[in-house]
């Protein structure tokens, strides 16, 4: 084993710390990097260990143009992503040339007792080289067998052929008292060409 050395008063290549030493309350559990991926699924580490799980999606780039970035939850370890959901969706947007702005509910993007995937962006994400969506999804106490499963999300994307800055706010609940133990992300059509999704547990 090589000896790791101090580098500018930080330590390199440390893989674990002694028990009892907290690395903080936002614990990175898994990172997945998309590469022409049809889906990105998190099927482990979602349990009663944490009361809240945070997914950060960073520069998610679709293979097809003007496509939605979506998520769903599973109550059977990822065999089926079909949890019933009721959600709200509202958005603010601004066109690059300054000609359009709006702040409104987006009823066409929400769900009412639906098992379908929920979109996280407003208008479709563009697939030009610099087009992407970034944001977060927070799911509260997915392991509960008493309560429904609240979630909140916010994202920013460049949409409609890249001419708009689109700030989206989605929230709602999985209307199930079964434990949610897996989460999947995918585009509404085509692949996730690139991007990073990180899952954290909140101590």
């Amino acid at each position, binding site marked *: 084993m090589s000896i790791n050395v101090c580098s500018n008063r930080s330590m390199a290549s440390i893989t674990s710390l002694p028990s009892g030493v907290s690395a903080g309350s936002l614990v990175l559990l898994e990172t997945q990097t998309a590469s022409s991926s049809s889906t990105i699924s998190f099927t482990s580490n979602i349990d009663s260990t944490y009361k809240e799980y945070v997914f950060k999606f960073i520069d998610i780039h679709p293979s097809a143009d003007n496509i939605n970035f979506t998520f769903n939850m599973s109550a059977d370890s990822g065999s089926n992503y079909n949890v019933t959901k009721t959600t*709200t969706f*509202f958005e603010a947007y601004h066109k690059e040339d300054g000609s359009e702005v709006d702040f409104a509910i987006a009823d066409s993007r929400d769900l009412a007792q639906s098992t379908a995937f929920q979109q996280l962006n407003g208008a479709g994400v563009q697939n030009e080289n610099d087009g992407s969506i970034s944001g977060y999804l927070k799911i509260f106490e997915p392991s509960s067998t008493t*309560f429904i499963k609240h979630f909140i999300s916010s994202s920013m994307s460049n949409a409609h052929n890249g001419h708009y800055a689109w700030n989206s706010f989605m929230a709602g609940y999985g209307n199930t008292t079964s434990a949610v133990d897996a989460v999947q992300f995918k585009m509404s059509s085509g692949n996730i060409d690139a991007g990073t999704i990180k899952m954290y547990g909140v101590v």
Partner: protein
Amino acid sequence: MSIVTYNNRSIANISAIGAAKALTHIKTVTASGDSTISFVDGSSDVVLDSTYPIYLLKYINVHPASDSQHLNVNFRDGGSSYDATKTTSYFEAEHGEDGSGAAVNYVTASDLAQGTGVQKIAPNVGGDADQSCSGELFLFNPSSTTFVKHFIIRTNTVRSDNITFDTHVAGYCNVTAAIDAIQFSFGSGNIDAGTFKLYGLKDS
């Protein structure tokens, strides 16, 4: 100083680390038939002072003993009363399980203008066994004796009539006294269940 050595690629004898603990858990309180849930600086291991510039409260699956109760919050700015003067904004998005009523609205009846009463953060939380609300509250620089105290709150709720609400509250305690305690309560009845977590966020 003794030399810290490697132990099978882990390091031993480290008792604290700095930068990695940007979000630091301070206190968890589990409600069980409580009229209020309070976080008071210096009490029961709670820190709510100049140690952190930002505090984050998470409230998870908060369930009322009585049906259709607002979850509220208030702040203490000295003394024993939760009555800090507040000016706030309040808007919410809603959508029924039956697909009806999708809307986003500013709700003037739910904001405060130099009010000292409680601030609603979740509307008419349902009392069915599986109904609750969950969300988060950021409080900025509560120990300042120079500035007002900003806060930002977002909550998702199952209302008693099976409508989901995404509630956004923001505002400030219009006081220059330090805020040293936060309290949650329902409009009527007890907090039957729920988990409340307090965190500190470091700025360096």
